[in-house]
């Protein structure tokens, strides 16, 4: 028994230590990189992008399914973006609500018979509309494909520019987001195939004329906890993965892709649950196999705001889908694992996902089970357990607070002292229930996946924005 216990103990402690070292390293790299990024912005990079004749035009593809509450506000926000030349392609993915009617009414849409190039597979398109009011707005109405990937593929087919920005209908982009995200495409036009930006939670913020005018923390606890979580994920780790050349995810809520590269790899996969991660991994695999130089980049400052679920039901559905997407991607791309030929993604990125993201759920749930069994059998040494839990919590809080302070110091979006204090409190509160809930949901998603239950694209019910 003592040997078994010793092995369990050592495994848990080694795992915990490795996790802490990895997160601390990623945070340190992100800290350095985001500092460099902020300094570059201060040198007037936006003006260069705005004025240069070398700035490429962008097609913004917005997939919408039953988004009647926010669709007009979203398009309004998009059309006011600061950028030289861009078009907006809204794809109504067979909405059963008034999404299309709202668009027709707001932008005086008329049906177009212009032929579309079906470069990527998607469900049949019912009609394409152009606006009498906005020359750069195209609306595609299509049969529901059951997933966002299908809708985005239809949008990419209709896009006319070499860069495609994929975003959600409920997302609000900062006015300079495109100016900032396009920089890597200008810097290295031949190699850059995809760039992602930071996704932040819009709950609690004030939106006026399609822009976030006041940043605030949501009063809803669940949404506030997600603010902390997003901050940690985007600010503290993704910048580092980009720097290491092992970026494995560009959020589906916001990313810019070179259209030719997306078409070359076959577009978004409708069968993938996490279509965003699946595309990025497939791009890595494709370009590595072809031995062609490429770059997939994340920038901390192009920011897109999106609504986080405020109910347990909505959150559970979202997280289970994300986790199933992750597991599916990992399984589909298992051939890349630990292969030096797959670069940093294969050697570092995927092992990280297998061990700490997918494996973390198992370790956490198994840990709870072992503790329960140990408590029942009387093998639990409570003082040590409490200290261990305290240490895990302290580390989590330290990491979240570090991300929060880094954001506070480097972001140009100031929020009130009360909001900062509330978010600091949330870094502690998330350890009591929220994290455990996440682990349980992820574990449930894993079980559902193994038992073969089908996942569906079930967009969240939107409340709409708080307007100023």
């Amino acid at each position, binding site marked *: 028994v003592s040997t078994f216990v010793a092995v369990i*103990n050592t495994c848990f402690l080694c795992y915990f230590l490795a996790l802490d070292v990895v997160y601390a390293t990623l945070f340190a790299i992100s800290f350095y990189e985001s500092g460099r990024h902020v300094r570059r912005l201060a040198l007037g990079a936006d003006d260069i992008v705005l004025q240069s004749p*070398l700035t490429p035009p962008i097609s913004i593809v917005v997939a919408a399914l039953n988004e009647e509450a926010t669709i007009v506000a979203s398009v309004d926000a998009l059309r006011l973006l600061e950028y030289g*030349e861009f078009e907006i392609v809204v794809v109504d993915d067979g909405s059963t609500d008034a999404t299309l009617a709202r668009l027709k009414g707001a932008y005086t849409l008329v049906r177009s*018979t212009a032929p579309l190039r079906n470069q990527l597979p998607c469900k049949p398109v019912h009609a394409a509309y152009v606006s009498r009011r906005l020359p750069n707005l195209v609306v595609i109405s299509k049969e529901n494909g059951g997933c966002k990937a299908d809708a985005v593929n239809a949008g990419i087919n209709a896009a006319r520019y070499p860069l495609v920005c994929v975003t959600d209908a409920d997302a609000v982009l900062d006015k300079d987001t495109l100016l900032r995200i396009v920089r890597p495409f200008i810097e*290295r036009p031949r190699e850059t195939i995809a760039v992602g930006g930071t996704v932040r939670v819009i709950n609690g913020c004030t939106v006026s004329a399609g822009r976030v005018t006041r940043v605030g923390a949501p009063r809803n606890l669940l949404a506030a906890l997600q603010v902390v979580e997003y901050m940690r994920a985007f600010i503290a780790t993704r910048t580092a993965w980009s720097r290491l050349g092992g970026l494995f995810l560009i959020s589906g809520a916001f990313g810019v892709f070179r259209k030719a590269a997306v078409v070359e790899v076959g577009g978004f996969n409708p069968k993938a649950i996490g279509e965003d991660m699946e595309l990025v991994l497939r791009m890595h695999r494709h370009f590595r196999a072809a031995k062609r130089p490429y770059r997939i980049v994340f920038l901390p400052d192009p920011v897109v705001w999106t609504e986080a679920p405020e109910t347990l039901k909505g959150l559970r559905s979202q997280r289970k889908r994300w986790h199933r997407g992750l597991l599916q991607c990992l399984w589909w791309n298992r051939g890349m694992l630990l292969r030096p030929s797959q670069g940093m993604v294969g050697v570092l990125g995927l092992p990280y996902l297998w061990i700490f993201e997918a494996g973390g759920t198992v370790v956490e749930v198994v840990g709870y089970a072992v503790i329960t069994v140990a408590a029942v059998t009387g093998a639990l040494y*409570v003082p*040590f357990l409490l200290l261990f839990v305290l240490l895990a919590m302290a580390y989590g809080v330290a990491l979240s607070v570090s991300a929060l302070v880094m954001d506070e110091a480097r972001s140009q979006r100031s929020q009130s002292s009360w909001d900062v204090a509330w978010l600091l409190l949330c870094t502690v509160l998330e350890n009591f229930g929220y994290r455990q809930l996440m682990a349980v949901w992820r574990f449930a998603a894993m079980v559902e996946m193994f038992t073969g239950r089908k996942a569906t694209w079930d967009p969240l019910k939107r409340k709409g924005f708080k307007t100023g």
Partner: protein
Amino acid sequence: MVNEDESVFGLVGGNDRSHAVFGEKILIGSVLVLFGWTVALALVAVWLRWLGHLQLRQRRRVEAAWRNKVDDLVLRGMLLPPVPRREQPVVLELLLHYRALLRGPEAARITAYLEEQGYAQRAAQELRARNRWRRARAADLLGRMRSETAVNALVRRLRDESEDVRAVASRSLAAIGHPRAVAALAAALADPSRWTASAVAADLVEMGPAAVPTLIEIASATDSERPGASDAAVTAVRVLGEIRDPRAEPVLIWLLGAAHDVNMRARAAAALSGVGGPRTSPALRAALRDREWPVRAQAASSLGALRDRSSVRALSAAIEDDSWWVRRNCAEALAKLGEPGRSALARLAASRDRYVRDRCLAALENLALEAKAGLPTPDGKTGMPPAPPARPHP
């Protein structure tokens, strides 16, 4: 009863109890370190916030104290009293703010003051700092001061090891607008960093006609037999297209016909739409028979942008091209050529070729749409502002 030596989470679970105690001490120590780190960070957040407020208040106070004196200097040429060292950054920003807004003698007075008081000299010295961000900031300040004394130093910074410094130096040189800077900037189009080249291209567009002779020189240095035209030459062609100076017409026409590189020929076709000129339309019509589709597609777009009705026939013939983009651009171009173009589209809409028919119908539909929306038609029937022209994209 819990047996510490065989416990879960007893660190090693071995028989040595001292291990477990040692483990506990490590855990307690780690928790305390993390707690200290968290508290320190929270204090840093508070301090940063407080510092930000303090700096803002200080800045407003200094600005209020110096605004009238700066007005006297700028508007009436009165001497500014010596500025205390700690207030110099705020006063400098105030002066640079005025410098950006003003032209003529007032602006010159500010630049002269900044040079006399050694601000420009200090910034020029900073251009040699080891830290790249300090060099970049200094280059930025010199550009905002419009100090011609710094032109040589800024030109040297166009070869800085940091692309950020090079980009800022280029922008500052363009802001100063000294003739000596044109050649250096044009040469910087060949910078290995496309970011710097992009900044330089924007700056050359801003400098306008003064940059045209040098750009023509770079563009015409393209070896027509070489498979890949240099990035610098292609960028020079793009900049020439943006400046729209008729002096560029001959070299662009030559490149359109003779350049080996497809991209260069397509860029020349695009640039010609901005430059125009008597020989442009025939050259573009000839390019509709180029062996590469991107050049043909771009030529079609440019003919539409020129709105030369004598191109209707050539475009009507080219609309049967094998390439989707060429057909599309031809139809859109015809739609821009007024009544003759519209007639050609109506005729071609009855074509037996489904692709030709579809494109023509779509172009006619767009015309009808624009007319209903009140957007200007090619015949210029409405006075409303036109829709932004789509950048040609072969």
